């Protein structure tokens, strides 16, 4: 795994096997880790920003037309010039990039053209709504995926494994929005158990809404996201479990009369948990993508919906802002995974140390 080699460098590279006390070693490694990751983040953001800006400047969507919508027929060339000036579109791309990047460094992401509000405040408002959805989906899919993966792996080729695998393979290739629509039809329209849309009941104001109502509205979108998200974790955990179950210590345990499930949960789980955690954190990107589609289906007013709007309606500042934000978000997920790896797995430090020392 690419991940491991990097961790070896970061966590233990220059410790030179000094056999420092655990805490000191960890602190040292952490500081180093943060520095390196920070530098990487800056580089990443800079290149993503530049690349996205270039891509967007090649977009065939005319931002003024996209903004005007049907009003395009009522607006004269003179008025278009006024709009272009308000947005700074009357300047050449390179100049615009300079300005944009300059503002960015000062923490100013600009003004969203379709919301006429600062990009950061749009992202902030929307992300809070999305956050709960993603958190719920992320938790459900992580837990379920892990448990299902272990069961499938423990009973390799058995009935349970077949059912779980078929489910996971099906879901891995099913579009999120489709599942969303099916669930919506069954539970919201035919059965009337769950609401059709929105983050809380129609006609209620945000401060009147109770936590139960919010969760009630969150349920179907979150389940949709998890149904799909579960597949990846399940399949990976299953592979790892199978691997662990074939190892000598597992075979030894089985030989001493331990059951399959017992072996899986007592012996294999330690080897399986770490990759699962990594995968779970690394899956934030997919979660983000899934949320875009799910929010669209359930008219859930989160960041995903804003992304689609920004794309359709040529809102360049917002689109770029969201790109940068999601870059940061995914990066944070991956870094967390790395960090957990470093803290939880003492072998990482020892093993790499041994190698270097040799």
């Amino acid at each position: 795994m690419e991940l491991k080699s990097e961790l070896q460098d970061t966590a233990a590279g220059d410790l030179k096997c000094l056999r420092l006390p655990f805490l000191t070693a960890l602190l040292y490694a952490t500081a180093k880790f943060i520095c390196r990751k920070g530098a990487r983040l800056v580089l990443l953001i800079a290149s993503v920003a530049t690349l996205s800006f270039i891509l967007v400047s090649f977009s065939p969507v005319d931002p003024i037309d996209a903004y005007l919508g049907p009003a395009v027929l009522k607006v004269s060339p003179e008025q278009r010039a006024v709009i272009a000036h308000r947005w700074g579109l009357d300047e050449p791309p390179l100049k615009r990039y300079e300005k944009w990047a300059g503002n960015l460094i000062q923490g100013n992401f600009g003004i969203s053209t379709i919301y006429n509000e600062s990009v950061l405040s749009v992202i902030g408002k929307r992300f809070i709504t999305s956050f709960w959805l993603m958190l719920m989906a992320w938790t459900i899919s992580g837990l379920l995926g892990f448990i299902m993966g272990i069961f499938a792996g423990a009973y390799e080729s058995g009935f349970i494994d077949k059912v779980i695998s078929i489910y996971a393979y099906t879901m891995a290739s099913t579009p999120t929005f489709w599942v969303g629509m099916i669930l919506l039809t069954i539970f919201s329209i035919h059965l009337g158990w769950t609401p059709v849309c929105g983050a809380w009941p129609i006609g209620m104001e945000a401060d009147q809404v109770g936590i139960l109502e919010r969760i009630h509205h969150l349920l179907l979108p979150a389940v949709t996201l998890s149904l799909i998200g579960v597949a990846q974790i399940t399949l990976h955990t299953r592979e790892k479990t199978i691997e662990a179950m074939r190892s000598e210590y597992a075979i030894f345990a089985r030989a001493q009369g331990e059951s399959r499930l017992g072996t899986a949960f007592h012996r294999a789980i330690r080897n399986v948990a770490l990759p699962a955690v990594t995968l779970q954190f690394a899956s934030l990107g997919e979660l983000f993508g899934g949320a875009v589609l799910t929010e669209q289906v359930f008219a859930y007013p989160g960041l995903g919906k804003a992304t689609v709007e920004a794309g359709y309606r040529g809102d360049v500042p917002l689109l770029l802002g969201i790109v940068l934000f999601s870059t940061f978000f995914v990066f944070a997920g991956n870094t967390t995974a790395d960090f957990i790896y470093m803290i939880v797995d003492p072998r990482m430090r020892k093993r790499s140390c041994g190698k270097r020392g040799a």
Partner: protein
Amino acid sequence: MIYSKKYANFSFSLAAVLLIFILSVCPAFADKDTLILAVGGENTEGYDPLLGWGSYGNPLFQSTLLKRDADLKIVPDLATSWELSADRKEWTVTIRKDVKFSDGTPLTAADVAFTYNKGLESGGKIDLTPLAKAEALNPTTVKLTLNKPDITFIQHLITLGIVPAKTYGPGYGRNPIGSGPYKLIHWDEGQQMIVEVNDLYYGKKPAIKKLVFLFADEDTALAAARAGKIDVLGVPSNLASQKIPGMTLHVVKSVDNRGLMFPIVPDEGKTTPAGVPVGNNVTADIAIRKAVNYAIDRNALVAGVLDGYGRPAYGVVDDLPWDNPAIRFKDNDPEKAKKILEEAGWTDTDGDGIREENGLKAEFTVVYNSKDSLRQGLALAVSDMLKPIGINAIPKGENWDRIKTELTHKFVVVYGFGDHSPLEMYKLYHTPSSPEPSYWNAGFYSNPVVDKYLDEAVAAKSFKESIPYWQKAQWDGKTGFCTAGDAAWAWMVNLDHTYFIRKGLDVGKSQMEPHGHGWPITSNINEWKWN
């Protein structure tokens, strides 16, 4: 064992929690004082008239100087009197004295002047560029000075909501203060907007106390209506024939039209300054344009493509006050179309079913926005209708941005127009003022007589007096842009706008709606009531 127990416990409690929520049914909203509307169109940039809010339909939170009634006649709103100076460049408008904004401050001529001046520089979706300046002469009189005579400016008096000069600022769109019938209470962006009756409103107070506008896409809104959560639902006409329990269909006539735009000038290899190729040798021949117009069976288009929700279109302003009824003609007449083509020298010499003239095939591409199934349906149907008369119209779906930037001056395009202002007609048919007309007069149509009428209409003394000129531009008995004249376009259909409305709700007489479906239905919201 530690792991398994933890997970087992957790997943069990999670399942239990899920079950509880699934079983707790969302309470239905059955409050008669509240209406839930899903008519599309959230104004994401806020409800700021200076950025374009209200130019379709009704500004709801703000009031306008004038307005149009259900028959589209111009009636006063804030204004008590209004007149145009002899040089036709100055509007003097007197406003009511008793008007207050919803925050209690009085509305004076200074606010009106501020609104117009600010709107001029705001860079939004309204185009006030004909305005030179606005001044308040005294607390109840305002003078609007134009750069040159332009009677169509009256449309701004009808649509531009007045904002308070004192409190207007960058955040206004999210917290609009106005003098309209409703005030904004709460807006969950991307989800819904709650509005309540404005107690300080000077006009007839609406019977419905509270409105909730639901912002969901078509499928979701439909699903919510099926679940009984919505009172007014706007739907595209292809969904209008279904049944929704507890709701009835409300069909509103509109001037939301669809037509074929013909490039009028021949293809001489020229391009616009932006490099868009111009001209089409086939449609430059008036015989082709007339033949297409006569051959199309508009009733069949309405029945087949619009599922009956619409009416044939013969011009761009059908049934509006400035429509000229003399432009109607008998369509679905392939014999007449063939005769016109024969007389112009278009005959099928090589026997392939397509006519030629001097080696040029009677063939053109009909481009439509590939995302719009209605336009696709029209293009395909018209193509079939033209085959028997020997014209090969090739339908082709294209990306909308590409249509605008590459194809619009060279190919026949399916466009949709229809506005409550005749200014649109001017823009479509007046000789283009710029070499880069974009959507406006994309075919480069030009007729000096039509130009003269259009200019006279714009320079008229009053809106009423401009009407005969608008009508003459269409057809003055000898010439005009209609089919009998230059046949610059082949108009096909006017859509009906379709809504599902909860049984027992009376939405009064709906205005004939412009292009754009949804908000316009709220233009008479003061009259809505429960029976």
